């Protein structure tokens, strides 16, 4: 009986994925927590095509099997992402844990995924039949539900290479290390010629998936800072009404209070 495969190339990995009933894994930091007997595993942590980081015109490409430690030391990875992933767990987990695994886990608490939501990142999904590129928010269908076919693998995360330099980020964990997010917030701001071109706000660990309300963001798009300031109360009010949060290890009220504080602070930080 075979209980595991090790893929040395992407083609090999996809071939196995297409023909076998396997659970892919890279760092194994999520999968190791519960031992589920009877499963067959496919190790993709050493597949060269999944271990690359490079930049092109539009995107920073981060391979699904790139570890957090590798990314922290890579000059091409944007600062916002680095800030978030350097708060993941502790060195041992960061040495093994990967971007693909963080997505594959399907959790709204995944710290790198929050940044992908806040930056409108895309994912490249591949199978033996071909590939598709999908917006990260489309990839998450619900709590622990992903738009990932049985024969597919996550190959890359595509982060925008420009326009995410101005941001606000906060992680609230139960302690300073080795702590899963209880609330997390990432906001990205951009303006051109005095007009707001981007004001993305994403909230992690407060609902089944990362939350982002693009229609509320639109209230401030195209506005000057002064105009936006006028709309500040309405904007915050809209969020406050929309955000229906679940309780977890902390209460829904706490989560809501913190989210609103961090959102307000994000506006203030950029003069709004």
């Amino acid at each position, binding site marked *: 009986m075979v209980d595991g495969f090790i893929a040395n190339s992407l083609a090999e990995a996809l071939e196995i994925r297409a023909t076998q009933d396997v659970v892919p894994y890279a760092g194994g930091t999520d999968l190791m927590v519960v031992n589920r007997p009877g499963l067959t595993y496919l190790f993709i942590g050493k597949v060269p095509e999944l271990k690359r980081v490079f930049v092109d015109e539009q995107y920073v490409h981060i391979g699904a099997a790139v570890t957090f430690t590798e990314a922290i030391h890579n000059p091409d990875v944007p600062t916002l992402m680095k800030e978030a992933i350097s708060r993941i767990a502790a060195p041992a987990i960061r040495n093994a844990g990967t971007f693909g695994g963080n997505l594959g886990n399907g959790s709204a608490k995944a710290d790198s995924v929050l940044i992908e939501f806040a930056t409108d990142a895309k994912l490249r999904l591949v199978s033996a039949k071909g590939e598709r590129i999908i917006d990260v928010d489309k990839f998450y269908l619900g709590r622990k539900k992903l738009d990932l076919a049985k024969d597919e693998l996550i190959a890359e995360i595509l982060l925008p290479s420009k326009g995410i330099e101005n941001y606000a980020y906060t992680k609230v964990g139960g*302690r*300073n290390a080795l702590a899963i997010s209880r609330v997390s917030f990432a906001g990205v701001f951009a303006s051109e010629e005095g007009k707001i071109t981007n004001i993305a706000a994403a909230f992690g660990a407060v609902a089944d998936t990362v939350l982002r309300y693009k229609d509320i963001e639109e209230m401030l798009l195209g506005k000057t800072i002064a105009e936006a300031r006028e709309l500040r109360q309405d904007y915050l009010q809209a969020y406050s009404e929309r955000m229906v949060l679940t309780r977890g290890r902390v209460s829904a009220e706490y989560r809501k209070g913190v989210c609103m504080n961090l959102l307000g602070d994000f506006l203030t930080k950029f003069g709004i």
Partner: protein
Amino acid sequence: MEKISQSVIKKDHDPKISGRSIYVCDYPSEGVLCGKILHAKVAKAKVLGVKVPELPEGYFYVDARDIPGDNNVNIVLDDMPIYCRETVEYIGEAIAMICGPDEKVVDKLLATCQVEYEELEPVIDLRKATEAFFNYDFAHGDLEKAFAEADKIYDEEFTTGYQEQAYLETQSMMAEPEESGRMFVHGSMQCAYYVKGAVMRALGCGPSGVHIYQDVTGGGFGGKEAFPSILACQVAVAARKCGKTVRCVFDRREDMEYTSKRHPSICRYKVAVKDGLVTAMDIDVIYNAGAYSTLSAVVLQRGLIAGPGIYKVPNLHVHGRALKTNTSPCGAYRGFGAPQTYFAVEMVMDHIARDLGIDSLEFKQANFAKQGDVTSTSGRYHFPIPIPDMIEEIDQLCHYRQKRLEYSKPQTGRYRRGIGMSMYFHGAGFTGSGERDIIKAVAKLRKYADGTVEVLASNGEIGQGVRTTFPKIVAHELNLPLEKVYYNHPDTARVPDSGPTVASRSLMIVGELLRRAAIKLRTQWIDGEEQEVEEHFREPTFMIPFYIDKFQGDAYPTYAWAVNVLELEVDTYTGITKVLGAYGNFDVGTPIDYNIVMGQMEGGFLQGIGYASIENMDYDAKGRIRNNSFSDYLIPTTKDVPNLQCILHVDKYPEGPYGAKGAGEVPLVGGPPAYLDAMEQALGGVNLYHAPFSIEDTMKVIMKEGI
């Protein structure tokens, strides 16, 4: 630094750091049956019966009917059964054990056991509990008069939660029937002789029918004081029935939910103040004992004795009860009942000072007890109280006074700071005349022909360093290199009863016996001969006899003293509280190994900070503890308190070896009041009343006060 204080490499350093130490779960499994407990799933019920699935050959079902001796675990009152009687009294109570060679099969059998319950009304809410296992009351002075004449009377209530010991190694025990018919029980424990007494009673045998060995133990913190007696009885009874070695290793969830933790408390303090001095305290203490009394008597006693803190309280009334609820029995945890009352007394002193408009340190200083003063139990502080000096030392270390003043000014902005201080003692050794009347410690040294010397005592290495410090003392007196003196894990078949590894007593009490024994051996030393010397405990002559029924006399011969400071920064947007600095000044007498003592101080202090802040555990309306894993019950890491500084103030105790006193527990005790004091300041001078104080609690205050 004195020679005896200079650090050496711990004797157990290499085997532990290299992974060669053998813990209970590391013994090979050949011939060993895996035992697992069938735990009660309801908080109170009559057990009508258990439908046990058909057992494959070699598998056993063990319950109360299999106990050859008496179904009561020997602890204090002996009310806890080994396997349940007609009723179960808390979720997790052991109904039976299933044993067999294959763990997976055992799991399956356990899962298919059907327990028929007739549910009874449990007592879950501590405030509604009425049955007191222990009810103590003591007083001195004229309370009524003091309250009648007071300028002002304060009446406040404080609560604290559970604290889980969170040792690395879960409760683990093995029992091996020997060919001679003797039962050999070994495992993770603090008190080999406690376990021996309990197993003798369970098996109904004499002292020669059983021997107990302490395996390498992965931490205890009090959690392995009483619980191992229970588990040892369970595996011993099982091994007797199966005629084979039985091993039971708890998984983390079982351990967190069903084994003893620190008692949650409700403390009400009524305080009379006249002319800036405390003239009376009327203290009412409730500890949540859980379903059986286990160690609650002694835990409560220590808490009550610490009731008035380190202050001179001429008129005092202390009333305390350990109440029964249908929850896991609480037990020992480093500090042993004292952290709860210290929290209350330190907080109430802070609050009174705030109300009087005086700086809390000044107010406390005005009320300090001094050498020669009467203690809470009408004993005496026989030795100088070093707290005033220790405050100056810590002020130099962290600029407490300057920061306290600075942070008391109105603050604005997202981040707010506060600094707080606590001061306290921890009585060294057993409460009252326990050492003299109950423990009666004996320690021996055996010298072999080759000139090596073995320490024979029953105190277990649990990370606190006794395998190193005991030989250090002996080697020092005999002028031998440390390699020539060794101390193995105790086996009751080989070592005398030098008492349990509890109450910060091992080094102070047994260490002194060993020092005296070494002197004796030195004077009798004959090269090339095998020799043995023995020493017995002697109560210091200055002690005022203690009567536990009246709570009168010297509760402790001496005290370890401490001053803790915590400096915090609160993020008002999230409630996240950063510890900017944690500063501890500890007087544990002469350190018998500087690094070992510092390890104790830093680790214990960090546990105290965890107790104050993030270590949150509670049960629901059904009596079930939900946060039963390390992802739900968080303890601090070094990243939470990177700036933790400890210093030692050395006031020697003449009756301890080279002046050493108890060091094990004192570092934990003062975390909560110092933390909350700092928190109160950061939050603009509010009064706070409970620990742990979580980020959510912080946010609630911020929202309510509009900070």
